[in-house]
């Protein structure tokens, strides 16, 4: 009998603090634990007692990489509770802000976190010594996403311009039009990115995923749509908790989400792409064809190409919004008074996938309960499943090679551990 353990005490090139432990007994994988030791920050507890208007600024602080996602999900959830909708140019500007975040976050992952794995470097800095043009292209692309976020949000990390009902200040037509050359440049960089990453060597590894994302009849999903899955699920956003549940496991400070009565599932770019391929922009679809990316991708290593295609989409969508923009009369829709206790729930598409928020409010506007389910908590169990399959077919690799293979398999899914730890299942017990 032989025991073998693979451990990584601090995963690198992921956001937040995580570790990995795999236990192998007699050539069979006994245990796979993606251990999240990032300390909990108790957001759901201290949101109680705050005003609903404070939630976009407070929940943004869950994640410095995708603050817009938190601002969007919280705004939509509050607007549902208040019985209001936001349409027209404000709706379009929210989408444009999200385009900025997708471009920034995808460029970060593609070039700084993921590409070094394919090209054999520990990081993008050392990658830049041999491939300066590639890394500079990535930084330039990332900068364009950040510039959109700065224009609409005031700054790229924790934007200050988002509020329930819309914005504090909307840009003028000229301000938006001024970004057009930059976004056109970003589109060309995104196209070069797709060609660049499609040329990488991809390990032969196909998984059978249940993909989950928003699905919208006419748009590639960001802020709106039903929750759909590749196994036939279609439910409105506020029924998320009927279909999915979270379980607490000993080895993680984050809860793991599963399909009720089912297993793990995957959210994020691969899921969005598989479920919404037809609603991609013409240029994004054309590039997928050019680089030979099929409409459903089930090799997680190729998620880097999917991110590049989504980045092209985000640039083309940004150009459309910039060209059609007419400033609204008011930068926000003033919310109506809250007339009684109300619950509002919403999900939007963070760069890493579905981000669900639910709040219970009491007049005049106080949050009495909050629940947040982040993309990485949903993917955690699915990442462990990938690892289990990877390790069981890679047992002949030496320790160092197998450890590296496991780290790579985790980075395929761009986990954001800072996000994942903020939703511990708190039950309030009153004496």
């Amino acid at each position, binding site marked *: 009998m032989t025991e073998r353990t693979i451990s990584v005490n*601090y*995963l*690198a*090139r992921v*956001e*937040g*603090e995580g570790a990995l432990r795999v236990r192998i007994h007699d050539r069979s994988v006994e245990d796979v634990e993606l251990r999240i030791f990032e*300390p*909990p*920050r*108790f957001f759901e*507890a*201290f949101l109680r*007692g705050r*005003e609903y208007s*404070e939630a976009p*600024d407070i929940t943004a*602080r*869950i*994640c*410095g*990489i995708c*603050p817009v996602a938190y601002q969007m999900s919280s705004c939509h959830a509050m607007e549902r509770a208040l019985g209001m909708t936001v349409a027209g140019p404000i709706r379009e500007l929210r989408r444009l802000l999200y385009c900025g975040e997708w471009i920034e976050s995808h460029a970060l992952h593609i070039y*700084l976190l993921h590409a*070094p794995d394919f090209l054999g470097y*520990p*990081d993008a*800095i*050392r990658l*830049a010594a041999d491939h300066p043009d590639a*890394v*500079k292209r990535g*930084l330039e692309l*990332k*900068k364009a996403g*950040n510039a959109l976020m700065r224009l609409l949000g*005031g*700054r*790229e*990390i*924790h934007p*200050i*311009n988002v*509020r329930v009902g819309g*914005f*504090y*200040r909307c840009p003028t037509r000229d301000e938006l039009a001024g970004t057009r050359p930059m976004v056109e440049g970003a589109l060309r960089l995104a196209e070069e990115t797709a060609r660049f990453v499609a040329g990488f060597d991809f390990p032969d590894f196909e998984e059978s995923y249940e993909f989950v994302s928003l699905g919208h009849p006419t748009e590639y999903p960001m802020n709106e749509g039903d929750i759909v899955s590749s196994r036939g699920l279609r439910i409105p956003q506020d029924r998320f908790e009927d279909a999915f549940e979270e379980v*607490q496991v*000993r080895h993680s*400070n984050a809860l793991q989400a599963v399909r009720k009565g089912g297993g793990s599932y995957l959210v994020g770019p691969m899921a969005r792409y598989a479920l919404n391929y037809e609603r991609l922009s013409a240029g994004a679809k054309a590039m997928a064809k050019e680089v030979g990316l099929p409409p459903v991708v089930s090799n997680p290593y190729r998620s880097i190409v999917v991110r590049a295609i989504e980045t092209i989409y985000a640039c083309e969508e940004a150009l459309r919004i910039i060209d059609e923009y007419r400033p609204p009369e008011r930068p926000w829709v003033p919310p109506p008074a809250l007339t009684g206790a109300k619950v509002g729930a919403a999900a939007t598409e963070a760069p890493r996938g579905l981000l669900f928020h639910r709040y219970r409010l009491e007049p005049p506007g106080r949050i009495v309960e909050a629940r947040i389910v982040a993309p990485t908590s949903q993917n955690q169990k699915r990442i462990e499943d990938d690892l289990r399959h990877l390790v069981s077919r890679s047992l002949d690799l030496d320790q160092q090679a197998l450890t590296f293979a496991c*780290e790579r398999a985790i980075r395929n899914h761009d986990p954001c551990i*800072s996000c994942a730890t903020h939703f*511990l*299942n*708190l*039950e*309030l*017990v*009153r*004496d």
Partner: protein
Amino acid sequence: MAVAHRPRLGVFKFASCDGCQLTLLDCEDELLAVAGAVEIAEFHEATSAALEGPYDVALVEGSVTTEDDAQRIREIRAQSRTLVTIGACATAGGIQALRNFGDVEEFRRVVYARPEYIHALGTSTPIKDHVPVDVELRGCPIDKQQLLEVISALLGRRAPNLPTESVCIECKRRGNVCVLVAHGTPCLGPVTQTGCGAICPAFHRGCYGCFGPQDTPNASSLAGKLGELGMAPSAVVRVFRTFNALAPAFREAADAAMKEGATP
């Protein structure tokens, strides 16, 4: 020929959102130059290569919320010539320090589904409560230009130029209309340290204090003004108790508003 010594840089994370260390990766135009001027010895978010200490400069993000982290910051301090705290979590405990306040009794009664799996202190505290800190960079998040200024200063062995005046000064320089005076919008600009670029007033909203108190704040006077503008004492408490709740001047202003009968 002697090889020039490149200062060794370590980037360390405690309880936080990763946004302040991301600010370094967001220096798209300067990142490769910075990386060429220093030796990145540890930066988990960016590299899978890690070198042993000691470090010439340690950038520390996040607050201390576990026993393990209280020990870890002492080890990092012992290995670091200059320790720089970056952001509101590291300098003032961050938003997660809300657990330290009036809510603490309620928080103590908050029970997890499986509390035995979780190891967390009842408090979130700034790094300076645990070890001496050489330079503080404020903000939630920090400002990119201020970060580059600190790195350049340390590389050039000079003191960094980090203004400690109020947001108001920067706001005037930027030519913003004063939202407090002209529109009656509650604004923490008069008591908040500059560094952000006065972006909130530029976007027609009041400053919410994410850089913490300026060097000579008169927070109680501002709290009175906020009351005149119609903010209830409980709202005044909340506005001072958000991202820099443990910073002394903000803490005192919130405590004073509490005494006026606010229920937080």
